[in-house]
């Protein structure tokens, strides 16, 4: 599911019209980006309620601070996802541990200290298989999680993900590689008989 290709000139024209108070331009921008922002927030936070709040706050930011968008640094979509990411991180600021890359283990497994143990895990998907992947993503370290969601689910390019997260493309590549390794490990853990027995015991 790649992000639909957007003509940057059309986006910038919409943004300029929106700044002049054009309601239709704002609605067009909202309808273009609402799903991507909401999905990112949902997969990042694991909570539909938090995702709705983050989506609302992201577009309120667009309404009140449109001048913060810098067209030389990327697309409107990537900027909005970056705003959503910051808002979601702020939401969990009191619950997530530090994600300084210097502190990360290099073996592809998140150290327990970097896993958010309180990420809400309400069921949001009908498919059991997809729901299991979503839970596995919610359990990996936040700085790996956002790159994974942006590149693999939202379909962003490495450059767009780098803009969204405020990191360079090389870091996006390495984090994505480690995120996939962590995801594979967690999915394997879920599939193991021991995990099923432990779940039944609970």
């Amino acid at each position, binding site marked *: 599911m790649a992000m639909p290709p957007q003509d940057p000139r059309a986006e910038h024209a919409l943004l300029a019209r929106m700044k002049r108070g054009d309601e239709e331009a704002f609605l067009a921008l909202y309808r273009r980006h*609402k799903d991507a922002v909401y999905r990112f927030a949902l997969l990042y936070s694991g909570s539909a309620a938090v995702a709705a709040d983050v989506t609302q706050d992201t577009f309120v930011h667009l309404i009140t601070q449109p001048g913060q968008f810098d067209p030389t640094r990327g697309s409107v979509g990537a900027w909005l996802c970056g705003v959503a990411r910051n808002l979601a991180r702020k939401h969990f600021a009191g619950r997530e541990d530090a994600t300084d890359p210097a502190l990360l283990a290099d073996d592809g497994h998140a150290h327990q200290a970097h896993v958010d143990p309180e990420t809400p895990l309400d069921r949001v998907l009908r498919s059991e298989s997809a*729901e299991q992947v979503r839970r596995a993503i919610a359990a990996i370290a936040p700085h790996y999680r956002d790159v994974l969601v942006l590149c693999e689910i939202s379909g962003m390019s490495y450059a767009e993900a780098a803009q969204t997260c405020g990191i360079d493309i090389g870091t996006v590549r390495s984090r994505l590689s480690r995120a996939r390794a962590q995801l594979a490990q967690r999915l394997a853990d879920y599939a193991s008989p021991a995990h099923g027995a432990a779940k039944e015991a609970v």
Partner: protein
Amino acid sequence: MNTETPNDPAREAFVDARLADLRRESALLAPPAALEGALLAKFRREQRPARRPLLWWMPPLALAATIALVSWMIRGPLPPMKTQVQAAQSIPASATPSDDAPFLALRPLERIALEPGTTVVATEFPRALLADWGLPVSPDRAGEPVRAEMLYSADGEALAVRLIN
């Protein structure tokens, strides 16, 4: 897919397949429909021009009054006498007195210029008195009163006169 170094092709294929499941399912997700209306209302509120306060005219009025007061205080209530007295020297004696006529010096200009405190007093006197100051007076109107402003020194000496009519 997006991996940097796919070490284990089987593991990568497994992850890709599971992520594809999630992509398919999450494509059905959308934010609550009510959000659009709420954001549109917010957008309209933001675009509405700020309402003019009820007493919006008070600050500019106060500013104008302050400027007028300060201007009056700096310039002073009295006209600059020296300039007017000097101007009076150039007026011929036969000039017709009027409301905007300059003061006519009755004492040397140097003395008037050095006078520390002067007062202007509106007064009325017989027209015949004008002849004493060298001004032409018609004999048949000599008995009529004439209105004038007198410039007095601090000790009451008449320094200059200005005819009003």
